[in-house]
């Protein structure tokens, strides 16, 4: 299956999508750069016919193709090529491109005609001297034409092996602040190479604005200011991607005009530095009620209870916000919610974990979730938590296979004090079905722990980042040293344990079932495991016996040629005959060499399953893997290293995004050069401080929630109304699926049940471990959670979770029987509690009434169940299975009927002289976590008190509050 990532069109006017980082492109070359004079731009140097200089393939020709659009996705950069001619997409495969130009295509001959340069197709096509599907790209005798012409005339030289690499791409000016519309500034781009040369490459650079409403940029690099706001323009040359921030203040409140704003924390100071430049004034502080609701939903995924709100509002302690955060961090819901988020980022998916553990009673996804939750609860440092995943093997240190299987068998039986959370490593991460190929692992690892998308570089140069195909290929090596299955070293022990179970000749699914049964009967069963494999000493596979034979033949032929040549010299009269034989032998050698190449390729294909002996860290050095017992250890060490810019950032940014709707880098999992942080100093500070605090996750939560920035009101002012990237006010955002589901349960629950739910995670959606098909059943929370966009944890993207609104969500809240029955529910429901307190006759217990249809179904189920038991007793597994399915289907039908029955009928009583003030207050506290305004109180009271049916009136009030936007968003 091809997994080509075709990035945004490099069409004539518009290049690429998305934004940028203020990093200049620096490669890992160590050559010291000697400052030198900047060479003038190419148009000056190549416009004249007489020029002596030979253009360089890497520095001039390939960038020019890119600039002219030739190597774009819609043209010759397409994987199918175009018109029989293909260039590497986004042009960084110099050998490929050189071959494409100089090796003859099937019909047309080579694109570069060195003998007759002017007749080269690569000149004739883009000038439309001959027909060109891509139209006119340049004019005859333009500088572009001359440049390419000159290169061909000089013999079309390729990139030499020791060619200098670009070390830096410098843009001036490096930041722009405009004060009005239509101001113009010309950008200048200078490339600095490892040999010390510097060159003005502006005409060979592609430019792109991330928001052309704010800043428009021409392909010549001329920048024109537009609307107020801030964005980046990005310059692309060679493998350099450099963003330049462009701003135009939104108000005249800049510099001295900027009002005094409070910045009590480092975060606030850094946020305001940016806001000051933009003329954006932050909103005021949120109210206590807003803060409590916001932080509870964000930090522990749980609504505050009504008494909690009241107590918090009453509290006069000036430090109560900080104290509240501390209290929340100690709750089980904190660990549950963040284990859920970490499950999202690490990809805890049931479908990928099928048959990873031999037990059918406990799921691997549950292990995964529990393991994470345990670490979050104990506040294990983030780097250590990650180490437990990255370095995981199924066996603990020094655990023999027998011990391992005994221990794990106990874990899955839930015996004694053994639990999966006690295991050192969370090995399931490596056991996933979707995570067994090195390339899939490289992609998933980079997504989870670095927040980058290197999948693009699997097939072509990353269009928005520095990563090339080589980078990807070399990084992949780190992921070849770990397997999941039966460890060959302990296969005998495995088989012995298996034999001891006496399962006869059962195979596949039957065997798995039998093992699971044996496990629950108390036997020790063998476990498959995640284990490390060591690379063998460095011996390239040369193709075995076939390769050896070919090598010998070639050697013989070469010797023969030497002899023949000597003979020819010795006997000049027969030279012609000898020459002929030499020619024949040479041809034979060529043939054998081709064959040798094939054999080598086959061998390398066979090699794929092998452990790599070396690999390169992304943007860093190559590592000799043969020195390591577990080749993942240099990878882990690298994550913690000082020069690793991404590890801490990726996490810090995701946590930030959880609190602010958007990350400092947005999307939060797309750190790339072309997508720079909206506030780099802020992200730098937080990541560094996180590292300095030893990756203390709770510190990070305290630091963010304790900032004034987090505690700002959602109510905007004139200057920050349109800002959604600079954290100048709180942005209303939809509750995440699990939080929304739980909030509906909490808001409708009786007071006592509500208090229970604060600590009891039973039935909470934030306590659901896995994701996947199994959860999509229509009964239980699965339906609501999928409608509200719970993460599917499928595709290495934070966007597997959706916080968008949809019609079905609104329908669910307004009219789904799940919601309606929760409101009207007899047991544990708030309405029922209130009506009881008011002395209204309880609602008729509709839920207790079994309809004739349901009765019929339950009878059928009874009969079937008996049959299942009988079939099992008779060891007719297949039959039992089939019947089991029928039972499940009937169960689903039954559940549906139960759901569709009328909600409990209210008694229809109207309570005279009802003063509903305190009830309305409570309704507001339990849904919107605040007291009603006077107006809201009046309207609500008149509705409830005026209702002909008081119970119905109360239900309507609760229904209406659940359906306000204020309920379903956090703000």
């Amino acid at each position, binding site marked *: *299956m091809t*997994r080509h*990532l*075709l*990035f945004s069109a490099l*069409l*004539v006017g518009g290049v690429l999508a998305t934004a940028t980082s203020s990093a200049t492109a620096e490669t890992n070359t160590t050559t010291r750069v000697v400052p030198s004079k900047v060479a003038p731009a190419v148009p000056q140097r190549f416009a004249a016919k007489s020029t002596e200089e030979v253009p360089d393939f890497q520095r001039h020709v390939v960038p020019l193709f890119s600039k002219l*659009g030739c190597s774009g*996705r*819609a*043209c010759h950069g*397409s994987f199918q090529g175009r*018109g029989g001619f293909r260039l590497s997409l986004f042009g960084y495969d110099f050998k490929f491109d050189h071959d494409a130009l100089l090796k003859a295509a099937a019909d047309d001959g080579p694109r570069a005609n060195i003998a007759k340069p002017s007749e080269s197709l690569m000149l004739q096509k883009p000038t439309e001297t001959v*027909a*060109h599907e891509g*139209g006119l790209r340049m004019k005859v005798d333009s500088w572009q034409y001359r440049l390419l012409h000159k290169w061909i005339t000089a013999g079309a030289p390729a990139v030499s092996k020791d060619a200098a690499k670009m070390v830096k791409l410098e843009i001036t000016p490096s930041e722009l602040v405009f004060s009005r519309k239509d101001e113009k500034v010309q950008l200048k781009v200078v490339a600095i190479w490892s040999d010390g040369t510097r060159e003005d490459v502006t005409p060979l650079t592609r430019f792109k604005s991330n928001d052309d409403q704010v800043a428009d940029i021409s392909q010549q690099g001329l920048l024109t200011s537009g609307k107020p706001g801030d964005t980046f323009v990005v310059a692309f040359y060679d493998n350099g991607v450099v963003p330049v921030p462009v701003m135009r203040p939104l108000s005249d409140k800049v510099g001295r005009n900027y009002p005094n704003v409070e910045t009590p924390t480092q975060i606030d100071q850094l946020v305001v530095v940016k806001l000051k430049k933009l003329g954006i004034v932050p909103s005021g502080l949120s109210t206590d009620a807003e803060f409590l609701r916001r932080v509870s939903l964000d930090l522990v995924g749980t609504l505050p209870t009504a008494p909690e709100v009241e107590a918090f509002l009453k509290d006069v302690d000036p430090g109560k916000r900080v104290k509240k955060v501390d209290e929340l961090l100690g709750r089980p819901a904190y660990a549950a919610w963040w284990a859920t988020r970490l499950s999202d980022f690490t990809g805890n998916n049931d479908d990928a974990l099928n048959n990873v553990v031999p037990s059918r009673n406990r799921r691997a996804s549950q292990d995964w979730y529990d393991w994470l939750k345990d670490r979050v609860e104990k506040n294990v440092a983030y780097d250590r938590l990650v180490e437990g995943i990255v370095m995981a093997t199924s066996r603990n240190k020094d655990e023999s296979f027998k011990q391992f299987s005994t221990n794990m068998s106990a874990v899955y039986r839930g015996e004694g004090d053994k639990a999966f959370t006690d295991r050192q490593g969370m090995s399931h991460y490596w056991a996933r079905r979707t995570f067994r190929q090195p390339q899939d692992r490289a992609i998933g690892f980079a997504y989870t722990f670095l927040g980058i998308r290197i999948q693009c570089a699997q097939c072509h140069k990353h269009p*928005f980042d520095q990563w090339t195909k080589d980078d990807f290929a070399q990084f992949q090596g780190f992921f070849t040293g770990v397997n999941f299955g039966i460890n060959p070293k302990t296969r005998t022990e495995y088989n012995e344990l298996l034999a001891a179970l006496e399962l006869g000749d059962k195979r596949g699914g039957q065997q798995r079932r039998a093992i699971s049964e044996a496990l629950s009967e108390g036997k020790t069963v063998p476990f498959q495991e995640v284990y490390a494999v060591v690379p063998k000493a460095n011996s390239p596979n040369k193709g075995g016996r076939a390769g050896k034979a070919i090598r010998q033949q070639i050697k013989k032929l070469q010797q023969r040629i030497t002899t023949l040549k000597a003979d020819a010299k010795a006997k000049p009269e027969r030279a012609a005959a000898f020459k002929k034989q030499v020619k024949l032998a040479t041809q034979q050698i060529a043939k054998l060499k081709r064959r040798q190449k094939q054999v080598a390729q086959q061998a390398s294909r066979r090699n794929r399953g092998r452990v790599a002996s070396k690999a390169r860290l992304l943007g860093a050095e190559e590592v000799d893997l043969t020195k390591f017992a577990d080749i993942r250890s240099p990878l882990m060490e690298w994550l913690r290293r000082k020069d690793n810019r991404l590890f801490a950032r990726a996490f810090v940014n995701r946590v930030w995004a959880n609190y602010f709707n958007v990350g400092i880098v947005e*999307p939060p999992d797309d750190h790339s050069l072309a997508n720079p942080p909206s506030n780099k100093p802020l992200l730098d500070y937080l990541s560094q401080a996180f590292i300095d605090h030893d990756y203390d996750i709770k510190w990070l939560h305290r630091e963010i929630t304790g900032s004034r920035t987090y505690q700002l009101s*959602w*109510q*905007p002012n004139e200057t920050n*109304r*349109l800002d959604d990237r600079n954290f100048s006010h709180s*942005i*209303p955002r*939809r509750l995440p699926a699990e939080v929304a589901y739980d909030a509906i349960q909490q808001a409708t629950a009786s007071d006592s049940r509500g208090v229970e739910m604060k600590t009891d995670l039973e039935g909470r959606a934030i306590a659901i471990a896995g994701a996947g098909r199994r959860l999509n059943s*229509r009964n239980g929370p699965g*339906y609501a959670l*999928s*409608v*509200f*966009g719970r993460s599917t944890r*499928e*595709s290495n993207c934070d*966007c597997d979770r*959706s916080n*968008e*609104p*949809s*019609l*079905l969500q*609104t*329908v669910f809240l*307004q*009219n*789904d029987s799940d919601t309606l*029955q929760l409101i009207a529910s007899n047991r544990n429901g708030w309405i029922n509690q209130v009506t009881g307190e008011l002395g209204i006759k309880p609602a008729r217990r509709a839920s207790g009434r079994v309809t004739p249809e349901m009765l019929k179904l339950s009878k059928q189920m009874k009969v079937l169940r008996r049959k299942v038991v009988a079939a099992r007793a008779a060891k007719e597994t297949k039959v039992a299975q089939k019947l089991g399915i029928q039972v499940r289907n009937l169960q689903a039908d039954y559940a*549906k009927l139960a759901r*569709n029955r*009328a909600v409990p009928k209210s008694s229809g009583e109207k309570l005279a002289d009802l003063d509903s003030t305190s009830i309305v207050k409570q309704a507001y506290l339990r849904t919107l976590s605040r007291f009603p305004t006077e107006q809201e109180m009046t309207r*609500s009271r008149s*509705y409830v008190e005026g209702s002909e049916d008081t119970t119905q009136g109360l239900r309507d009030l609760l229904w*209406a*509050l659940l*359906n*306000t*936007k204020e309920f*379903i*968003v956090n*703000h």
Partner: protein
Amino acid sequence: MTRTKPKGKKFMALHATCDGVKRRDFLKVGALGATGLGLANYLQLVAHGAVQTGKATSAIFVNLPGGPSHMDTFDLKPNAPEEYRGLFNPIQTNVEGIEISEHLPKLAACADKYTILRGVSHTLGAHALGQEFVNTGTRPLASLEYPGYGSVITKERPGLVDLPGFVAIPNTRQKAGFLGVKYAPLNTGSTPQKGRPFSVRGIALANGLTITDVEKRQSLLKDLDTTFSGIEKDSQLLDGLNKFSRQAYSMITSKKAREAFDISKEPAARSEAYGDAAFGQSCLLATRLVESGVRFVTVSTGGWDTHRDNFGRLKDRLLPPFDQALAAMLGDLDQRGLLERTAVFVTGEFGRTPKINSRSTPGGRDHYPRCMTMLMAGGGVKGGQVIGESDEKATGPAGEGISPSDAAASFYHNLGIDHTKEYHTKIGRPVMIVRDGSVIDELFV
């Protein structure tokens, strides 16, 4: 009637003169993207009749999960060796020269209403992957979830405010994928039964509520939901929530929505024509929904995974209700004048092994993606044709074969949707609606 697929069907005119056509606009347009077809040329081709714009405004997708045997339904090989040909005989349809299985007599009597695609071929032999392929038109990629037909169609052709745009009976493999939950299907969750009232979760007023009740509480909601009124215009989220709230309200209170789902309103004669089976009544519901204005309905009926006793199961259990329901639906749509605006697409995820296995007596057939059949009808589709051909033992296409992507491109084309249109995923990756397909021109001649 049969054909082998020419290379680059839809764009043949273009490819034939690939380098010869001068198109200065090509790169500037870009909208039609990576196929290399510029808008100017697209329009030119339209003008020359090489591309038709869609006729259909809604669609019914009949999914047959499990993978029905092509050789025992629409692609019989009576002259193949015994271990291939199976137990069924072909019968003549009402279109001369077209024969289908003897166990599809009702469909044989209306072969003029649909077109059979034979020799459809792909390589995904697992149910889940095959289903994903035929439900999206794009070969599944591990890195990206493609939206199903229904999601694309509801995005491209927004429907009525008081009806859902995309309904699945009882459910579907189609997901909204990278288009987002906004375009997710409404699953009915169960199949309707003849003459019985039918309602769908959340849509109908159940739970004893009356419209008056709903209107009353809605007015309360309106008065209480004012906190954000000052900033709603500036927030996509709040604006969206408002829009959906209005839409949900009209759907819940709309008589039209309620009645569209309630097949008990159908006269007995019409209802009976579809047959008593769940599939028949589902087809009836699909017709009703399309008639009310729903854009996209998918009906699924499984059981086609006939590894054992292929013939018995087809003859006795699978084909009769299928034959009756599909024939009734096509006839009914036609009679009501709906067929010309409703694109119908019938397919499973793959065909079945031409060689009969010996797991049971009589034998079964196993998964076989290399050769399968599909049906298309309605909209601009010219019925009464066979397009494509399989080899003499139905082991593969004769010639190049039709890919599910081509079928998908044609399905979209029938609905006036350009399958080469590009969407941008959340990460800015440009993705065509159908990755590698081209429209099968003959369908629309």
